[in-house]
């Protein structure tokens, strides 16, 4: 399949990227790993006249804890995230999400920034990052803007990025002590989008849940934060009955559609099960049962 033709740029700095975005406003797309954009272009579902590749822009591959946050640069490759000892040790939910994105070959080029900025509700990172309370950093000639991922995700493949802004990094608050996270995905086979998936984060304080995060993948127009379920968990001991009720509330927050993978009710049922499992796992990890 041959995409429509376009003009390709690989600028060496953010100011050059901004110049190109201004010159070609509305006709240009940012190219990160290209593992979602290029397939869309081959199918001619997207035909940008200009592609601005970020591969030569310095400073976008940071992956470190800084100022109380985990900073994930926009051009950090999925495989880099997946293989990072820091992520494997302290951000198990993010590790689990990165390890089920597409397949290992795609992950060698796919980027975390692209996964989020593409704003496909089927992508795996947004739900997990919602659960972790992540923020997005966007830079433009006007300065640096930070927004919650909740505000960033507007609709299917639509974000709050302004035409002159570039997503430069994702910031995840460093987990408090006694915090656990998990990401569980149901897919037919490796490389598929989730039939449904759930990311959870739980912080315990004296056996009581003091913070809860639950994000849902591919069951609505964007990744969904299950707010009612989160609120229900806070202040309670996460025992089996509480987990089950939270899972029921999370499934109720979803807006799944019937498709080739099954009817909406099936997906809601899957979500209830996955949420309960991911909550139990996060609680177990928060209690110190191996990793965070």
């Amino acid at each position, binding site marked *: 399949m*041959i995409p429509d033709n376009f003009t390709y740029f690989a600028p060496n700095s953010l100011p050059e990227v901004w110049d190109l975005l201004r010159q070609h406003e509305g006709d240009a797309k940012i190219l990160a790993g290209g593992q979602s954009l290029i397939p869309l272009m081959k199918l001619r579902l997207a035909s940008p006249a200009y592609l601005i590749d970020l591969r030569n822009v310095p400073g976008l591959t940071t992956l470190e804890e800084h100022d109380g946050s985990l900073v994930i640069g926009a051009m950090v490759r999925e495989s880099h995230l997946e293989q990072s000892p820091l992520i494997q040790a302290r951000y198990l939910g993010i590790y689990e999400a990165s390890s089920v994105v597409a397949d290992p070959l795609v992950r060698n080029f796919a980027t975390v920034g692209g996964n989020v900025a593409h704003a496909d509700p089927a992508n795996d990172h947004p739900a997990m990052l919602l659960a972790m309370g992540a923020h997005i950093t966007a830079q433009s000639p006007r300065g640096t803007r930070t927004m919650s991922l909740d505000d960033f995700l507007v609709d299917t493949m639509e974000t709050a990025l302004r035409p002159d802004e570039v997503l430069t990094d994702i910031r995840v608050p460093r987990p408090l002590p006694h915090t656990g996270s998990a990401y569980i995905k149901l897919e037919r086979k490796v490389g598929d989008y989730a039939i449904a998936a759930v990311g959870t984060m739980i912080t315990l304080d004296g056996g009581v849940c003091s913070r809860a995060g639950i994000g849902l993948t591919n069951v609505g127009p964007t990744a969904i934060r299950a707010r009612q379920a989160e609120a229900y968990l806070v202040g309670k001991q996460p025992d089996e009955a509480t987990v089950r009720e939270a899972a029921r509330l999370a499934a109720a927050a979803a807006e799944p559609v019937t498709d080739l993978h099954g009817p909406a009710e099936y997906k809601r049922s899957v979500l209830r099960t996955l949420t309960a499992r991911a909550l139990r796992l996060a609680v177990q990890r928060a209690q110190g049962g191996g990793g965070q």
Partner: protein
Amino acid sequence: MTQHVTITINGQPFEADIESRLLLVHFIREVANLTGTHIGCDTTSCGACTVLVNGTPAKSCTLFAVQADGAEISTVEGLEQGGKLHPIQEGFFEEHGLQCGFCTPGMMMTSVAFLKDHPNPTDEEIRRAISGNLCRCTGYVNIVKSIQYAAKKMRDDQAAPTPAPAVTEAEAVR
């Protein structure tokens, strides 16, 4: 809309003026005329087009050639050296790792990169590593055996450095 690129494939530089939309796999097959790299699904699923880009396996149907400007690409044609099969090729031969052979170049390129970091892999690690490469003959059992064969061969070669080439009778006479 055209752009001048230099892409090195198996050590040999290829220069061309190409359309930006030319996919890397088409550059490899149609500009460099190296047709060992296959196009299977053309939708980022099957991995038949897998090549190494600066040592990292990638699906070359999902990269534009312009993104690889200045890069070093390795394809299946570069595996055999001086008439001697690469251990992974020997493994696929010895263990019957191919039936129709269409997925084989991609399987081998993924394996070569994988074995560099995992000299002594478990079968499960191998299966995970090749989970982005599909074999429509479903010959995975023998593919895993082939990769294990290559891993062992490479470990043995590492342990016992290659002896000096045997002197042939003709050379000895000289």
